[in-house]
């Protein structure tokens, strides 16, 4: 609250000029012209980003910028709420859901509905034009500023209205939120149709399926690279695909051991990797030391 108290007088001083001149302060104009292009670009990212996570991050940028603009427009309370509710809650929720749904498949931009693309563009731009035309009819209004309304600080002014004129609406919104929470629970609740699968059942299933009984191997951890996207090597020195996260593999974002070796400048690494099936005896390895190890930089340790 103290932060808001501090912010308000400064902005109120700027608004004083607003009511008199009808124009914002130069500082606010500067802020707007800095933020507005960023916001538009970020918003366009929503339209063009191939991956949902990028789109979500660009929306976060838009929303944080909006919060700043709210504060600049003498609405510090809304600015804070914007940050807390939108960027803090809503967008995090989006990201959670993105992770649950799976971030692996990138969204194809190829249109399937006939005519939808040009309708989207034509009428999207048309909407922009029409809306600009509509809002510009309000340009003739002389700005009043919020000095009088924010006399007892902005949150107090809002509270007087919310708990005065709009108290009933507030109660209804409260009910709405509770209903939404319960609704979300109901939607996501899954009725158990089969017997619960316990540890024993899982183990039995694995034995029956003949797959690995132990947990999947971790990604490769090497002297100069312990990234998640590099596969581990098995006893024969071949890369284990399953050790890299499925998501990375689907996206094609994993790196081969070869690339890592190149990064490390180990020129002879390819020699071993090109013929992984030949076995340690033929690769010219030193002693019982697996040649793969030498690639990953343990050589240098030795």
């Amino acid at each position, binding site marked *: 609250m103290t932060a808001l108290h501090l912010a308000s007088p400064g902005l109120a001083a700027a608004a004083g000029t607003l*009511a008199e001149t009808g124009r*914002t302060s130069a500082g*606010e104009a500067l802020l*707007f*012209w800095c933020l507005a292009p960023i*916001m*538009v670009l970020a918003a366009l990212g*929503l*339209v063009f980003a191939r991956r949902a996570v990028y*789109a*979500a991050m660009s*929306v976060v940028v*838009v*929303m944080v910028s*909006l919060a700043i603009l709210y504060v600049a*427009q003498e*609405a510090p*309370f*809304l600015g804070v*709420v*914007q940050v807390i509710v*939108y960027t803090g809650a*809503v967008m995090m*929720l*989006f990201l959670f*859901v*993105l992770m*649950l*749904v799976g971030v692996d498949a990138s*969204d*194809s931009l190829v249109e399937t*509905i006939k005519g939808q693309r040009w309708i*989207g*563009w034509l009428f*999207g*731009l048309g909407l922009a034009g029409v*809306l*600009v035309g509509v*809002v*510009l009819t*309000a*340009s003739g209004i002389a*700005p*009043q*500023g*919020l*000095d009088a309304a*924010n006399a007892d600080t902005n949150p107090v002014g*809002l509270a007087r209205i*919310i708990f005065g*004129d709009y108290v009933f609406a507030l109660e209804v*919104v409260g009910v709405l*939120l509770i209903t*939404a*929470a319960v*609704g*979300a629970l109901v*939607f*996501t609740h*899954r009725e158990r149709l089969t017997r619960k699968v316990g540890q024993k059942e899982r183990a039995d299933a694995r034995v029956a399926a003949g797959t690995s009984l132990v947990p999947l191997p971790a990604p490769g951890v090497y002297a100069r690279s312990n990234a998640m996207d590099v596969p581990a090597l098995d006893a024969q020195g071949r890369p284990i695909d399953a050790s890299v996260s499925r998501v990375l593999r689907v996206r094609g974002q994993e790196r081969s051991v070869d690339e890592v070796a190149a990064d490390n400048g180990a020129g002879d690494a390819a020699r071993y990797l090109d013929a992984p099936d030949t076995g340690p005896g033929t690769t010219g390895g030193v002693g019982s030391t697996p040649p793969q190890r030498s690639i990953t930089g343990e050589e240098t340790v030795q």
Partner: protein
Amino acid sequence: MNLSNYLVLASVLFSIGAMAVLLRRNAIIVFMGVELMLNAANLAFVTFARMHGDLSGQVMAFFVMVVAAAEVVIGLAIILAIFRTRQSASVDDVNLLKS
């Protein structure tokens, strides 16, 4: 600077959000487009409040935020439920309205 610039920005953001709804097929991105449109409207509300010297506009924006929050909860729950049954988050795969 004229306050109308804020309104123009709001219009542009709103249109971009609408285009996102129209052009994207990922239900989550479509949903984010909707959120962007709501935010654009909020910006317009706040600007109008400042123009008229009346806090009611900000109150309205506040309610929009609250309702949007509830909407997001429900909307994402629906998307999740659909994804579970259909293994897809594309809005084009949900076309039971036809036939």
